[in-house]
């Protein structure tokens, strides 16, 4: 199982805070993203924008590998400070 979290404007625009996906061997972050974008036009639109991602609370790029039980997070560019 993989836990996927969404934050801030992504969470609001998707109307979703978290979901779970089945783990497949050799998955990369972009595979997860493509799977989510296939959920519909809104998912496609929102996730094709400027979206950052983290695996197990560390920022990663699209080619990062996923392990079983990973916590994946998608969020917009950060605006703290």
């Amino acid at each position, binding site marked *: 199982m993989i836990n996927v*979290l969404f*934050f*801030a*404007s992504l969470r609001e625009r998707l109307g979703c805070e978290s979901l779970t996906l089945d783990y497949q061997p050799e998955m990369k972050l972009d595979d997860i993203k493509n799977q989510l974008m296939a959920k519909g036009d809104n998912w496609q639109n929102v996730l094709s924008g*400027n979206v950052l991602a*983290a695996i197990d*609370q*560390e*920022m990663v790029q699209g080619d990062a590998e996923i392990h079983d039980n990973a*916590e994946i*997070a998608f*969020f*917009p*560019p*950060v*605006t*703290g*400070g």
Partner: protein
Amino acid sequence: MDHNQELAMIKVTENDFNVAEEYQALINNNSQDGAVVFFVGLVRDFNQGHSIKGLHLEYYPAMTENALKVIVEKAKERWPIGRVRLIHRVGSLNINDQIVFVGVSSQHREASFEAAQFIMDFLKTEAPFWKKEVTADEGERWVEANQKDQLARKRW
């Protein structure tokens, strides 16, 4: 308080902070450091063309504090600094409220000034916080990330 805790205090909290107390924690029993630099960020009344009534700060609880630790560690590797204190508030804030505190001590002023700027530049671009503003004219809006902050981060 153990040694590491004393050298770098990092906190993400809904509570306000007291600048005088933070300053004392940077200088108490610290006669080797002759320089203290600090930065406070506050909620302004106007941002990105909108009049602001307040804001809400969202974060990623499992990740944010650790992301700040990584930034402070990078600063410590790069400059000969003494103590660092970094506090970032989350939740609902009003105009004039304090948002963020960065305090750095060092023997000479250059290290403190540069490390404090480095920490702020990385915090602004890599630490998972998101601001939603309550505007006077358009209701609520998510603050957009700033090209200028990306550039500031790239100079290091």
